[in-house]
């Protein structure tokens, strides 16, 4: 099977795990793809991509599929890849699996595993169409090491007709607070509906500062308007994989847990000893976070000498 990995950012380098060609939109990412063995490592740089990344990127991916003769296209399950995958599949008449957490090529078939019903069940899909499109969740594949001296190849033949009608990105606002990002953090402190109000996230922030941790939230806290949507962790927010995830006042809805399934350790603080979060936590503390957090912050300060 001929593979094409759509590597829109460095996070997507893991899509190169199974070899094949790649397509990227910035010189540094394309160079990384080439160094990690992608061949050809297509690079398409065009002002249209900055202006209308969704439509322009899709056209470039179509061109890369044509030129590489790929019959299996891998995309990341992120805000770009999730947008491109279904549209690409529609254009190619391809079989598609999104949110994939495991894939195997077996002859002409691609067998994909993916969580459904908020992670309460797992489905296996067999893609049998001549062309397959798979959206792969972060952390499922591992990026190969840089080992070759390959160079990117310019991608041409991208059809940009009709671009005057494409939606235009007029602004990109980064909302990252100071400290590590949710994607990079080794430790994440996260709050849910149990926190009861926006002001209580300030206490979580204190704990996060002591631990050099990022602060996240469940969907419930976002829906209440306590924190911005960019803090949301879960299947419909960010997928994170810290060494330690401290969940405070989070019941543990499966939708949320799908976003932290890759966390190495989960510690949960909740007043309800039957909360589902404890089914997946390694360490549990039954108690009111208002009473627990101040001594917890003090104990962490003492331990870490901060």
């Amino acid at each position, binding site marked *: 099977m001929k593979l094409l990995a759509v590597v829109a950012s460095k996070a997507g380098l893991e899509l190169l795990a199974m070899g094949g060609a790649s397509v990227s939109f910035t010189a540094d990412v394309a160079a990384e793809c080439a160094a990690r063995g992608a061949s050809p490592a297509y690079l398409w740089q065009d002002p249209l991509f900055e202006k209308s990344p969704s439509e322009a990127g899709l056209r470039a991916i179509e061109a890369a599929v044509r030129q590489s003769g790929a019959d299996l296209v891998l995309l990341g399950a992120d805000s770009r890849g999730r947008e491109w995958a279904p549209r690409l599949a529609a254009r190619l008449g391809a079989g598609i699996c999104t949110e994939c957490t495991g894939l195997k090529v077996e002859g002409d078939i691609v067998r994909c595993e993916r969580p459904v019903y908020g992670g309460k069940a797992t489905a296996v899909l067999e893609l049998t169409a001549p062309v397959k499109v798979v959206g792969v969740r972060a952390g499922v594949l591992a990026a190969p090491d840089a080992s070759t001296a390959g160079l990117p190849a310019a991608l041409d033949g991208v059809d940009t007709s009709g671009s005057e009608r494409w939606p235009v*990105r007029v602004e990109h606002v980064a909302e990252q607070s100071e400290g590590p990002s949710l994607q990079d953090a080794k430790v994440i402190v996260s709050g849910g509906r149990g926190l009861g109000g926006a002001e209580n996230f300030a206490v979580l922030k204190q704990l996060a500062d002591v631990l050099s941790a990022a602060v996240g939230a469940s969907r419930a806290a976002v829906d209440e308007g306590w924190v911005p949507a960019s803090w949301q962790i879960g299947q419909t927010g960010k997928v994170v994989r810290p060494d330690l995830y401290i969940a405070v006042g989070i019941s543990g809805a499966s939708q949320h847990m799908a976003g932290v399934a890759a966390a190495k350790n989960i510690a949960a603080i909740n007043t309800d000893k039957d909360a589902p979060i404890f089914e997946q936590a390694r*360490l549990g503390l039954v108690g009111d976070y208002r009473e627990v957090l101040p001594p917890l912050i003090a104990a962490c300060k003492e331990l870490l000498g901060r």
Partner: protein
Amino acid sequence: MHSVVCIKQVLDQDIPPRAFRVDRAARRPDVAGAPLVMSIFDGNALETALKLREATGGGAVTALTIGPKGAEEILRKALAVTADNAVLIAEGDLDALGAAERAGLIAAAVRRTEPKVDLVLCGRQAGDWESGQVGSMVAEALEWPCVTFVSQITDAGSGRLRLRREVEDGYEVIEAATPVVVTVTNDESNVLRLAKVRDVMMAHRKPITTWSAADLDGARGAAGAAVTDLFIPEKSSKCEFVDGKTAAEKATNLVRRLREMKVL
């Protein structure tokens, strides 16, 4: 502005994992008697459309679903929160249709809907299979542009919309000309409103337009993807609860155990 909001009836997403069962042979959930609800992001899409209608002081919102007769329930709910019209594409076994086929039916219904549709909104993904495919495929079937993961929409004048699109590190502001397809994600502004009692009663008197798949002739061929298994994943983790007479003691013990596990 005429908006069509695509909504889906799904198994209640709040069924706890321990109560969730599957019929592995049939590859379907097996939770008899569990409630069916409007998929949660479809509620966000509906609210976004209603807010846009109110802000522009005109236009109409049509709620559309594919499903069996029982799916009329979520159309009534949409009417009760003041959607203007409701359309049911009658299909007894929704699971038998792939994403591309559903998108083809929706696109055909949109083409047939009067007055001319300017905006189609879908939840970013359904609360059951969570594939996030149908909205984007509707755009392809209509040959309209598509903007995904939108949380807020405002009218930018002269047939243009200004959309806030949520991304990993914050958000983008997108300007798009209508007609356009939008998939909606949640934020604090688009939680579906509660229906007023009077509107609930009114909703039961409103007509629901029903079309069959045959009326629409929008279905495409098979998608070359088949579900071959459905099972409950095994969970091996056993939680260790930290002891302590007081909150402070528990907190200290938690930190001690985290250190012993070498994660702090």
